[in-house]
């Protein structure tokens, strides 16, 4: 089971309690009526869909109900860092520190603990 750290509940909880909420840190245009169709398309429809480090919104929908932000690696599915929704995009350095700290810990995977590795 994948555990996700909720910055509001201040603990790791099962992925079952969470919902993905799309790319994070997308600023709504100040005056949306003034922008061109191309700019609207960029803002409203187009997403980066990064391979690797990505910033996403997540919601602890079956827990505290709050939206928060997460830096996640889309290749390994590893959550590098989660932080409260009102905080600015956390710099890559902080994410890399979190990643390094996580790598120092023994990472439990389903294959190691419960799966049949043969």
């Amino acid at each position: 089971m994948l555990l996700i750290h909720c910055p509001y509940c201040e603990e790791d909880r099962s992925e079952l309690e969470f919902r993905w909420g799309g790319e994070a840190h997308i600023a709504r245009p100040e005056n949306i009526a003034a922008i061109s169709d191309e700019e609207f398309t960029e803002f409203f429809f187009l997403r980066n869909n990064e391979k690797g480090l990505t910033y996403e919104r997540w919601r602890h929908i079956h827990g505290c109900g709050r939206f928060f932000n997460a830096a996640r690696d889309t290749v390994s599915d590893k959550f590098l860092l989660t932080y409260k929704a009102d905080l600015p995009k956390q710099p890559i350095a902080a994410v890399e520190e979190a990643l390094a700290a996580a790598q120092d810990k023994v990472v439990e995977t389903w294959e190691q603990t419960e799966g049949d590795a043969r």
Partner: protein
Amino acid sequence: MAELGSHHLATRTLPLAGHHGGSSVVRLEAAPPAARLSLRARAEDVAALSASLGISLPVKPKTSVCVNGRTALWLGPDEWLVIDEDHGGLLQAATDSGVLHSATDVSHRNTAILVSGPGAAAAINGGCPQDLSLAVFPVGACSRTLFGKVEIVLLRTAEDAFRVEVWRSFSDYAFGLLAAGAQDAALSA
């Protein structure tokens, strides 16, 4: 409860009327009716609401406070479930606080199942992913979470006793899954 007087009214049937179950290590009971309030407020208004409700709304995640049959459960940073098993009057008390808040009476939306016995945690873990060890989920701990495919609010009332708050239309399902969990808990006990 309203006074019926001489009026002839339909008999009220509780969502889990007649349900009973469990196993050699788990007892399952439908909780008696209770008054319930879904309460939301900003941090600066918590003190006034606490004073008016006569119970200190908890601000620490996963904690609850219980005073004289009235329990306030932390659900989120600005959200509480308040349960009164004796008197009710919750909505009026919230209104009397005079501060900005959102309060919804959910007394009849929820019902509760009381799960007790040495296998209580194991029975709940049959459908709930939370760590229910006493170190992580001590007496008084509470959380909104999942039980199988339904959302519940879980409160630990004693070392081997829990209150499972569930929406009334999901209560049949929750009771059934708890009964299955109780059987499994007896097998592994």
